[in-house]
């Protein structure tokens, strides 16, 4: 949605920007302002109609609309009065500083100084302090991040020591790193796993070590969007949850909720097993029932072991639920 106010604000930046870059392409200018080319065209038509009071040809901002529509290049002139952009508003400064906090969470330590100094400069650019914000993400160890950024920049193949997924074993995959991304507050390495010949995500806080192999990484294009992976492999499991477990709807991919029923997108059965076990009485699988079998078997084995072991006399079991 674009309101008239957004458009005025944008034009007050766009006009000096274009004036300083005669001949810039429509595509580049649209990308710089995160606009579609159609939106940018609409903005240019407005600029074309504006200027100093008087409305005489020499008073108006000049935009070569033929060149825009024909060659896709922008030449904007006669807007000296708008040669500099409007100062930053407090919420704009706050937004960029918040974004920099997010960058700092996932960045390699070598970037901290630049992030902090950029943020400090921004803080002086408005007439009032912007909103305060505190960010926290799970992004693993600084030295792991530094090694991964080095591997990304040098296009190196690396061996990870990875304390795996829900099954909880340690693996040492050899991968070509492609990107560090964040989903729901957790940082992941997106990488091409050479042994699996496919894209994999590795949670940064579960990567214990990164060792360079000495080999050059290969270019495998871009990793697919995570949403696609989910829809490929996920199955739907419906749980009846108590209020105290309602938080799962905010933390995990949910396809539907109705009353106390929640339908989750489940990719890995082992993940569902550990979720059911930790939620205990707070949630129960209702459909398909078989999805819960692994958890029930695990719980039965565990309860049996607790009973046997306490029989050995070292630890006396507490009776009944807490």
């Amino acid at each position: 949605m674009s309101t008239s106010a957004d458009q005025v604000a944008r034009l007050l930046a766009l006009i000096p920007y274009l004036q300083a870059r005669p001949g810039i392409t429509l595509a580049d200018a649209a990308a710089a302002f995160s606009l579609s080319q159609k939106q940018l065209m609409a903005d240019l038509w407005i600029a074309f109609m504006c200027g100093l009071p008087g409305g005489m040809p020499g008073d108006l901002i000049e935009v070569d609309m033929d060149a825009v529509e024909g060659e896709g290049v922008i030449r904007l002139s006669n807007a000296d009065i708008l040669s500099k952009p409007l100062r930053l508003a407090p919420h704009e400064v706050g937004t960029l500083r918040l974004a920099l906090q997010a960058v700092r969470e996932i960045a390699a330590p070598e970037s901290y100084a630049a992030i902090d100094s950029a943020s400090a400069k921004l803080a002086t650019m408005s007439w009032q302090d912007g909103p305060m914000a505190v960010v926290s993400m799970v992004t693993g160890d600084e030295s792991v991040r530094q090694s991964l950024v080095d591997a990304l920049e040098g296009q190196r193949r690396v061996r990870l020591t990875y304390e795996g997924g829900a099954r909880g074993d340690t693996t040492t995959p050899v991968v070509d790193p492609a990107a560090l991304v964040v989903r729901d507050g957790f940082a992941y390495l997106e990488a091409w796993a050479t042994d699996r010949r496919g894209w994999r995500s590795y949670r940064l806080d579960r990567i214990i070590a990164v060792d360079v192999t000495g080999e050059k990484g290969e270019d495998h294009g871009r990793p697919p969007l995570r949403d696609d992976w989910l829809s490929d492999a996920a199955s739907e499991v419906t749980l009846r949850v108590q209020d105290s477990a309602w938080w799962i709807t905010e933390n995990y991919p949910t396809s539907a909720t109705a009353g106390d029923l929640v339908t989750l997108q489940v990719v890995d059965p082992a993940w569902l097993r550990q979720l059911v076990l930790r939620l205990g009485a707070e949630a129960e699988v209702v459909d398909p029932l078989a999805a819960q079998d692994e958890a029930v078997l695990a719980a039965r084995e565990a309860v049996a072991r607790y009973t046997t072991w306490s029989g050995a006399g070292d630890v006396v079991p507490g009776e009944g639920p807490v």
Partner: protein
Amino acid sequence: MAPRKTERQLNLVICLLAARRYLTREKIRDSVEGYQGLSDAAFQRMFERDKDDLRDLGIPIETGSNDSYFDDEQGYRILPGDFELPPVEFTQAEQVVLGIAAHVFDGAALAPQASSALGKLQAAGVELSTTGFVQPRLGGDDEAVSVVWEAIAGRRRIRFDYREPGLTRRVEAWGVLVRRGVWYVYGLDLDREAPRMFRLSRVAGTVEALEPAEAYELPDRSVVEAAAASLEPTAVTDTAVVAIRGTAAPGLRRRGSLASVPAPEGYTAYAVPYGSVQEIADQAAGAAPDVLVLGPDEVRDATLHRLRAVAARPLSTELA
């Protein structure tokens, strides 16, 4: 979009920026395209609204008179020095991190604020470069995020229904916390007369920003930081003894250290520090039966409580 309104407001800005003296309303009405042909009342209303809109964007429209002896001639102007972004200078390394920051809000509620700010910086000569290797995201797709954010910037109180329609809260918002992708607003709850934290995903309906602006003061940043700290897991206070089978649960093993107590066959005992009973019981139950809690009783009982509830359920094969 209303092109005519945008044109008129842009022309008004240019006109006031170019003015060497305060311009009276009549002069503005004659000069700016879009004000002609209106009744007096319609012009006054439109001009007032335009002035408010532009001031909301941060455009400093000054009011004053050219002649201090006859102050009945109120006029308006914009001083370029107050209007323009002062010269900015970012190092190459700073431009790289700003280039990464530029995409943090892609597709999120704060995207317009971010692109408008970055547009201004680029207009002032900043070049944003991106390698695309590092892609942090903060989430926050909800429109409530942007309403709350701008309300805090303008110190406007907010009003919203929380958890369910009708349960209305009025809040002087102090700051925003983003923890693991979840957005919270923290501030003074005016009805409970105490600081409270609200999860934005639990707002029912929309958040309304109330006039006037500058209605309250913000506390020191440390107040918001303390609230953020309260969301983090509690500091380690105790140690549990758990038995871990084989190479399972590497996270717990790494957090703990070998304990010299007997463990079931195939298992090894570890002493693992923990913050809360709930947290360690969640982990131990989730990893069962590869992890068994040997003590203390409190942790073992909480873990067993979870496991018994699940163990009592029928298998799908037992139902038919």
